[in-house]
């Protein structure tokens, strides 16, 4: 049922500093040539085809005490946060901070420009006319919070990250379509080439793959 494939790319035969035409670059490199090395195992990739299967698998991997692991799915799965033991994100607090900063910024902008730097009277309103400042303060609050929500989410998710060893897997392309993946990273303190593989096999995935970096 489960098949194991190892992907290795052939090592380039030409040294990296020699251009294809054979011309040497203008500078002389003194760096030693990289040693021929087997590509390092980056982790295991297990494929599942139903929501139930990936949820059950996630619970087992969570209970086995792994920490550097993840599941990947085409859509957010209801209940996955619990199954994986993901703690609530800090994002709402960051967004609240962004909103408050927007609020204060909008207020400061209006008071500074219309009451301090260039005070002018309009229709008998006081120089610091809070009611008249409310719409812009409101818009600045929303803008501050919304920008923080988007960019805060991207930063916390460490995106953009255009290189990812997972993208080398042909199988993994279906993660944005109809398949579910469980990935255990080799850097996990609990990771053991044999034991981890055994655990993943016991979860009954439709495919199991080693991926390298």
């Amino acid at each position, binding site marked *: 049922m489960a098949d194991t494939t190892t992907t290795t790319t052939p090592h380039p035969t030409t040294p990296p500093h020699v251009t294809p035409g054979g011309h040497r670059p203008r500078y002389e490199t003194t760096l030693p040539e990289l040693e021929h090395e087997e590509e390092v195992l980056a982790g295991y990739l297990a494929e599942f085809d139903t*929501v139930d299967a990936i949820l059950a698998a*996630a619970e087992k991997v969570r209970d086995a005490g792994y920490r550097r692991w993840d599941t990947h799915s085409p859509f957010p799965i*209801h209940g996955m946060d619990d199954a994986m033991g993901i703690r609530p994100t800090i994002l*709402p607090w960051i967004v609240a901070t962004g*909103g408050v900063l927007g609020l204060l910024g909008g207020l400061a902008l209006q008071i500074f420009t219309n009451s301090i730097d260039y005070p002018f009277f309009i229709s008998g309103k006081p120089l610091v006319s809070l009611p008249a400042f409310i719409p812009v303060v409101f818009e600045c609050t929303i803008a501050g919070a*919304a920008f923080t929500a988007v960019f805060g989410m991207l930063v916390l*998710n460490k995106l953009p990250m255009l290189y*990812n060893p997972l993208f080398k897997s042909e199988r993994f392309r279906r993660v944005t*379509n109809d398949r579910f993946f469980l990935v255990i990273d080799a850097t996990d303190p609990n990771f053991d080439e044999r034991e981890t593989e055994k655990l993943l096999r016991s979860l009954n995935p439709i495919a199991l793959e080693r991926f390298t970096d």
Partner: protein
Amino acid sequence: MTVIPQDQLPRVSGSSSNGDGELDNTIERPGQRAPLILGGMGFTEVTETVTRINAVKTPKAWYIAFAISLGLLSLLGLTIGYLVTTGVGVWGNNQPVSWAFDIVNFVFWVGIGHAGTLISAILFLFRQKWRTGINRFAEAMTIFAVMCAGIFPALHVGRPWLAYWLFPLPNQMSMWPQFRSPLLWDVFAVSTYASVSLLFWYIGMIPDLATLRDRATSKAKQLAYGIFALGWTGSSRHWHRFEKAYLLLAALATPLVLSVHSVVSFDFATSQVPGWHTTIFPPYFVAGAVFGGFAMVLTLAIPARQFFGLKDIITRRHIDNMCKVLLGTGLIVAYSYAIEFYIAWYSQSNFEQFVFLNRIRGPYGWAWACMTFCNVVAPQLLWSKRLRSHLGWVMFVAMCVNCGMWFERFVIIVGSLHRDFLPSSWGMYIPTWVDLGMFAGSFGLFFTMFLLFCRYLPMVAMAEVKTVMPQSHPHAGPHVNRHRFDYWPDERDHVPPMKKGEAAQNIRDWTGI
């Protein structure tokens, strides 16, 4: 809550012009939910149906539509170029009607955008699952409509190359914008709205751009989609923050969208002009905007689902629901029209009373009649279930509302300005060819952008559609019915009584606090 099996759904009856016997999922069956995705689709089929639109060879019809739109867009470019090099005198507006087509078009386009945000944000907060089929292109519509809207005030300032004076930028005159004016509030409201809508649209699109990246057939496509997908891998840890950010954005966009048209209405309501000086403008404008916007969503959705083969994703139920929103907001608009007349009478102000009688009996009475027919009479057809399920009639009503909402702004703006306090300063407004050309040209911009969007971007929010499919829900275990915020009564019956601290836990889960 079970879903009605698809083989139990009836087929849509009617002539061949009215669909080809599509499944009718508008039926109501107590205790059962109607399916939102038809055609027996699984995740794979949803992906294929949507990405096929981007993958196939460009259809000839697309080129024809694009050529027409591009032609109109060049008309826009031409008229703008003529205006900038000559002056705003090329427009027909002059005292006493100093705001005319430019502001009418601005309010018209901004209003259209509101339906997109309503669908993406407000319906999201209300957990209206049917929104997933239509939210992507409704949001796209919002962005393109706001783009069209932005052109008009920028030109209206008279010297468009100085339009940056609207923003609080330090300058050699040491002067700042006047923050106690609603016109400046408008600058902030519309620019915030445009940028937040763009963020909302883009952030929701990242997972679908990743789908296009993973299915790309050429290196160029893979690179282009790959860059904009930001390296999305569908990680659950990412989804967790993504969903939270999306929820927060929806919660922020909801008051924002209500504020935008409120602020637009302040441009009028804070003035002294009879017919403008009224307190009901903010809610009246917001309802009108949603009303007009939903008409535009229907105008785009009905041909798009036909043309791009999305009938199983944008189903009859989606159309039916949108018709109901159109009818509901239409009734609010009709009520606002009526209450305006009542308040004019009740105010006992001669000028106010005159302006409203003048709307009916004055020289622009035809515009008022047109508005009333299109916005008040025509939507009443949607009370009928039969007409709601007949696409021809739905399209007719939507077109009526599109026209009617434009005329509403014309009646409010030109109709109030052309005859105010002093009869000696009355006048008439007649649009010039530049006015008409620019209005037609703005449709060119809108449709050009929309066609490009249909061709190159994921038209349906695939990831979101998949979450409302029955397959996406775990079938058993502690994950089902964990939250009791669901409003389906029969589901609640299966939930054991609430444990101590469960409510607080639910709130923590939801808010992440």
